[in-house]
């Protein structure tokens, strides 16, 4: 697992952003990919898109102010799998 992906999962899990509780996706991605190089960013984006396709994350478009933004949270059904992935990475 890429470092930014792991960091995103740790953040969402620690702050209880599971199911209905969500966080702005753009804000999270920018904070985690700020210091990455071009190639690292491409690899991370590929992995991130594959995780979304596998339904690890729940993505919703939410009204914010005058426009709408994508928000993200962890899929509660995949919670155990995510925890196992993080546990293996740390060890």
């Amino acid at each position: 697992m890429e470092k930014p992906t792991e960091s995103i999962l740790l953040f969402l899990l620690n702050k209880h952003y599971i199911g209905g509780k969500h966080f702005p996706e753009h804000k999270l991605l920018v904070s985690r990919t700020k210091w990455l190089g071009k190639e690292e960013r491409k690899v991370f984006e590929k992995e991130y898109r594959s995780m979304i396709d596998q339904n690890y994350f729940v993505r919703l478009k939410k009204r914010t102010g005058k426009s709408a933004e994508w928000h993200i949270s962890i899929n509660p059904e995949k919670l155990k799998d995510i925890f196992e992935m993080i546990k293996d990475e740390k060890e």
Partner: protein
Amino acid sequence: MKKNEQKGMFCQIYGDSLRNRFLECLLQLGNLDFAVGDIAREINISRPKAYQIMAIFEKQEIIIKSRIVSGTQLYVLNKGSVHVKVLRQSFKECLRLVVEENNSQKKSFEQIKERKEIEG
């Protein structure tokens, strides 16, 4: 801390002090490297205060300098430090609690549903 900011499990257990919020942020970043300003913005404190806390952690060898990108010094968690290993283990246990809480909530919702179905 702003009203909308969510308290993490680590701070819920160990207390909501500045030092703990800083540590929680570092543990959330995992193996990523970071700048002082990013942490300050994330936990909503001033940059001078963030630099103060960083200096303490650098002295304790919890964080080390990693690289310089466009004039910005980046830091990373010191994997070799015993303190960091203990912190990571406790952070992992905090995450385990989050998963268990969520599972117990699920079970209680399912039990309520079953009771409603039985009652008709």
